[in-house]
Protein backbone atom coordinates (compact mmCIF):
# COMPACT_ATOMS: atom_id res chain seq x y z
CA UNK A 1 0.00 0.00 0.00
CA UNK A 2 1.32 3.43 -0.93
CA UNK A 3 1.65 5.97 1.86
CA UNK A 4 -0.42 8.46 -0.12
CA UNK A 5 -3.12 7.50 -2.59
CA UNK A 6 -4.53 9.95 -5.11
CA UNK A 7 -6.95 9.23 -7.93
CA UNK A 8 -5.02 10.10 -11.11
CA UNK A 9 -8.19 10.94 -13.05
CA UNK A 10 -8.20 12.41 -15.57
CA UNK A 11 -11.00 14.68 -14.43
CA UNK A 12 -12.84 16.82 -16.98
CA UNK A 13 -15.38 19.45 -15.89
CA UNK A 14 -17.18 22.40 -17.51
CA UNK A 15 -16.20 25.94 -16.64
CA UNK A 16 -17.88 27.13 -13.46
CA UNK A 17 -18.14 23.67 -11.91
CA UNK A 18 -17.07 22.82 -8.38
CA UNK A 19 -14.10 20.48 -8.41
CA UNK A 20 -13.27 18.05 -5.63
CA UNK A 21 -9.81 16.51 -5.42
CA UNK A 22 -8.94 13.96 -2.76
CA UNK A 23 -6.12 12.01 -1.18
CA UNK A 24 -5.96 9.31 1.44
CA UNK A 25 -2.91 8.40 3.47
CA UNK A 26 -1.77 5.74 5.87
CA UNK A 27 0.96 7.42 7.97
CA UNK A 28 -0.63 8.86 11.10
CA UNK A 29 2.53 10.92 11.76
CA UNK A 30 1.72 13.29 8.90
CA UNK A 31 0.83 16.71 10.30
CA UNK A 32 1.32 19.15 7.41
CA UNK A 33 -0.83 18.78 4.33
CA UNK A 34 -0.26 20.60 1.09
CA UNK A 35 -1.70 20.99 -2.36
CA UNK A 36 0.48 21.82 -5.34
CA UNK A 37 -0.53 22.75 -8.86
CA UNK A 38 1.69 21.68 -11.73
CA UNK A 39 1.38 22.81 -15.30
CA UNK A 40 2.82 20.62 -18.02
CA UNK A 41 6.63 20.48 -17.97
CA UNK A 42 6.82 22.95 -15.09
CA UNK A 43 7.72 22.74 -11.44
CA UNK A 44 4.87 22.42 -8.92
CA UNK A 45 3.68 25.58 -7.19
CA UNK A 46 2.28 25.56 -3.70
CA UNK A 47 -1.44 26.40 -3.56
CA UNK A 48 -2.29 25.81 0.07
CA UNK A 49 -1.07 24.11 3.19
CA UNK A 50 -2.77 23.23 6.44
CA UNK A 51 -1.59 21.96 9.77
CA UNK A 52 -3.42 19.07 11.39
CA UNK A 53 -7.19 18.83 10.91
CA UNK A 54 -9.54 21.55 9.76
CA UNK A 55 -10.41 23.76 6.84
CA UNK A 56 -8.57 26.57 5.12
CA UNK A 57 -9.93 28.86 2.45
CA UNK A 58 -8.07 31.03 -0.05
CA UNK A 59 -10.18 32.65 -2.71
CA UNK A 60 -11.80 29.95 -4.82
CA UNK A 61 -9.79 27.20 -3.11
CA UNK A 62 -10.69 25.35 0.08
CA UNK A 63 -8.53 22.69 1.68
CA UNK A 64 -9.94 20.21 4.18
CA UNK A 65 -8.12 17.76 6.40
CA UNK A 66 -9.78 14.93 8.32
CA UNK A 67 -7.04 13.22 10.28
CA UNK A 68 -9.44 10.73 11.88
CA UNK A 69 -10.22 9.36 8.42
CA UNK A 70 -6.76 10.07 7.00
CA UNK A 71 -8.41 11.97 4.17
CA UNK A 72 -7.71 15.36 2.64
CA UNK A 73 -9.56 17.33 -0.01
CA UNK A 74 -9.15 20.37 -2.19
CA UNK A 75 -12.24 22.12 -3.52
CA UNK A 76 -12.12 24.56 -6.40
CA UNK A 77 -15.18 26.78 -6.81
CA UNK A 78 -16.15 28.45 -10.08
CA UNK A 79 -13.47 26.52 -11.94
CA UNK A 80 -11.76 28.25 -14.85
CA UNK A 81 -9.93 26.90 -17.92
CA UNK A 82 -6.75 28.32 -16.37
CA UNK A 83 -7.21 25.84 -13.51
CA UNK A 84 -6.44 23.02 -15.94
CA UNK A 85 -3.33 21.36 -14.54
CA UNK A 86 -2.15 18.42 -12.47
CA UNK A 87 -2.91 18.75 -8.76
CA UNK A 88 -0.62 17.03 -6.31
CA UNK A 89 -1.29 16.43 -2.66
CA UNK A 90 1.73 16.25 -0.37
CA UNK A 91 2.32 15.59 3.31
CA UNK A 92 5.07 15.83 5.87
CA UNK A 93 5.71 14.92 9.46
CA UNK A 94 6.39 17.57 12.07
CA UNK A 95 10.03 18.11 12.87
CA UNK A 96 11.12 21.47 11.58
CA UNK A 97 13.97 22.28 9.25
CA UNK A 98 14.35 19.82 6.42
CA UNK A 99 11.45 17.71 7.67
CA UNK A 100 9.11 20.21 6.12
CA UNK A 101 10.68 19.65 2.72
CA UNK A 102 10.71 15.87 3.00
CA UNK A 103 7.32 15.57 1.44
CA UNK A 104 5.44 12.45 0.45
CA UNK A 105 3.42 13.13 -2.68
CA UNK A 106 0.37 11.59 -4.25
CA UNK A 107 0.70 10.74 -7.92
CA UNK A 108 -1.38 13.73 -8.99
CA UNK A 109 -4.82 14.26 -10.53
CA UNK A 110 -5.02 15.66 -14.05
CA UNK A 111 -7.78 18.26 -14.24
CA UNK A 112 -9.20 19.80 -17.41
CA UNK A 113 -11.72 22.63 -17.24
CA UNK A 114 -13.33 23.16 -20.62
CA UNK A 115 -15.07 26.40 -21.66
Amino acid at each position, binding site marked *: QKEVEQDPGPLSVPEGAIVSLNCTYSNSAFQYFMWYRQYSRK*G*PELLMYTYSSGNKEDGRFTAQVDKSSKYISLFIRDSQPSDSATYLCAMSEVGGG*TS*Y*GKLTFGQGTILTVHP
Partner: protein
Amino acid sequence: SQTIHQWPATLVQPVGSPLSLECTVEGTSNPNLYWYRQAAGRGLQLLFYSVGIGQISSEVPQNLSASRPQDRQFILSSKKLLLSDSGFYLCAWSLSGPRLFFGSGTQLSVL
Protein backbone atom coordinates in the same frame (compact mmCIF):
# COMPACT_ATOMS: atom_id res chain seq x y z
CA SER B 1 12.46 38.17 -3.79
CA GLN B 2 13.71 34.62 -3.93
CA THR B 3 14.17 32.80 -7.21
CA ILE B 4 15.42 29.37 -8.11
CA HIS B 5 17.19 28.56 -11.35
CA GLN B 6 17.53 25.09 -12.74
CA TRP B 7 19.15 24.01 -15.99
CA PRO B 8 19.08 22.61 -18.55
CA ALA B 9 15.34 22.35 -19.22
CA THR B 10 15.72 19.30 -21.43
CA LEU B 11 18.52 16.78 -21.72
CA VAL B 12 18.96 13.65 -23.83
CA GLN B 13 21.84 11.44 -22.83
CA PRO B 14 23.05 7.98 -23.91
CA VAL B 15 23.21 5.12 -21.43
CA GLY B 16 26.54 5.08 -19.64
CA SER B 17 27.23 8.80 -20.04
CA PRO B 18 27.79 11.14 -17.07
CA LEU B 19 25.25 13.63 -15.77
CA SER B 20 25.43 17.01 -14.09
CA LEU B 21 22.34 19.07 -13.28
CA GLU B 22 22.73 22.38 -11.51
CA CYS B 23 20.41 24.43 -9.36
CA THR B 24 20.98 27.83 -7.78
CA VAL B 25 18.83 29.88 -5.43
CA GLU B 26 18.90 33.66 -5.24
CA GLY B 27 17.55 36.06 -2.66
CA THR B 28 17.95 33.93 0.46
CA SER B 29 20.69 32.55 2.67
CA ASN B 30 21.24 29.08 4.08
CA PRO B 31 18.24 27.46 2.45
CA ASN B 32 17.45 23.78 2.73
CA LEU B 33 17.85 22.29 -0.74
CA TYR B 34 16.24 19.25 -2.29
CA TRP B 35 16.36 17.10 -5.41
CA TYR B 36 13.14 15.34 -6.38
CA ARG B 37 12.42 13.07 -9.32
CA GLN B 38 9.06 12.65 -11.01
CA ALA B 39 8.59 9.57 -13.18
CA ALA B 40 5.82 9.52 -15.77
CA GLY B 41 2.42 9.10 -14.09
CA ARG B 42 3.91 9.01 -10.63
CA GLY B 43 4.29 11.39 -7.75
CA LEU B 44 7.48 13.14 -6.79
CA GLN B 45 10.14 11.13 -5.03
CA LEU B 46 12.71 12.78 -2.78
CA LEU B 47 16.26 11.86 -3.81
CA PHE B 48 18.57 14.11 -1.76
CA TYR B 49 18.38 16.99 0.66
CA SER B 50 20.94 19.33 2.16
CA VAL B 51 20.91 21.60 5.19
CA GLY B 52 24.23 23.30 4.44
CA ILE B 53 27.43 23.35 2.42
CA GLY B 54 28.85 19.86 2.03
CA GLN B 55 25.97 18.27 3.94
CA ILE B 56 24.04 15.76 1.84
CA SER B 57 21.46 13.20 2.89
CA SER B 58 20.24 10.50 0.54
CA GLU B 59 16.73 9.18 0.72
CA VAL B 60 16.99 6.28 -1.69
CA PRO B 61 19.94 4.17 -2.86
CA GLN B 62 20.55 4.77 -6.54
CA ASN B 63 22.91 5.59 -9.33
CA LEU B 64 22.94 9.30 -8.49
CA SER B 65 24.85 11.57 -6.12
CA ALA B 66 24.47 15.17 -5.00
CA SER B 67 26.81 17.90 -3.87
CA ARG B 68 26.48 21.37 -2.41
CA PRO B 69 29.71 23.27 -3.06
CA GLN B 70 28.22 26.66 -2.17
CA ASP B 71 25.41 27.84 0.08
CA ARG B 72 22.92 28.36 -2.73
CA GLN B 73 24.16 25.80 -5.26
CA PHE B 74 23.01 22.20 -5.48
CA ILE B 75 24.27 19.72 -8.07
CA LEU B 76 22.93 16.33 -9.06
CA SER B 77 25.39 13.97 -10.73
CA SER B 78 25.89 10.51 -12.11
CA LYS B 79 29.00 8.80 -13.41
CA LYS B 80 27.10 6.42 -15.68
CA LEU B 81 23.45 6.92 -16.53
CA LEU B 82 20.97 4.04 -16.65
CA LEU B 83 17.74 3.85 -18.63
CA SER B 84 15.88 3.94 -15.31
CA ASP B 85 17.35 7.37 -14.55
CA SER B 86 15.00 8.95 -17.08
CA GLY B 87 12.50 11.33 -15.53
CA PHE B 88 11.67 14.89 -14.59
CA TYR B 89 14.15 16.23 -12.05
CA LEU B 90 13.16 19.06 -9.78
CA CYS B 91 15.25 21.15 -7.45
CA ALA B 92 13.53 22.83 -4.53
CA TRP B 93 14.31 25.00 -1.54
CA SER B 94 12.77 25.84 1.78
CA LEU B 95 13.61 27.79 4.91
CA SER B 96 12.15 26.95 8.31
CA GLY B 97 8.52 26.37 7.38
CA PRO B 98 6.56 23.86 5.32
CA ARG B 99 6.59 25.93 2.13
CA LEU B 100 8.65 24.21 -0.52
CA PHE B 101 9.53 26.14 -3.69
CA PHE B 102 10.38 24.26 -6.85
CA GLY B 103 12.47 25.11 -9.87
CA SER B 104 11.21 24.67 -13.41
CA GLY B 105 12.63 21.16 -13.75
CA THR B 106 14.86 19.20 -16.12
CA GLN B 107 13.38 16.54 -18.38
CA LEU B 108 16.05 13.85 -18.70
CA SER B 109 15.76 11.15 -21.31
CA VAL B 110 18.32 8.36 -21.22
CA LEU B 111 18.46 6.42 -24.50
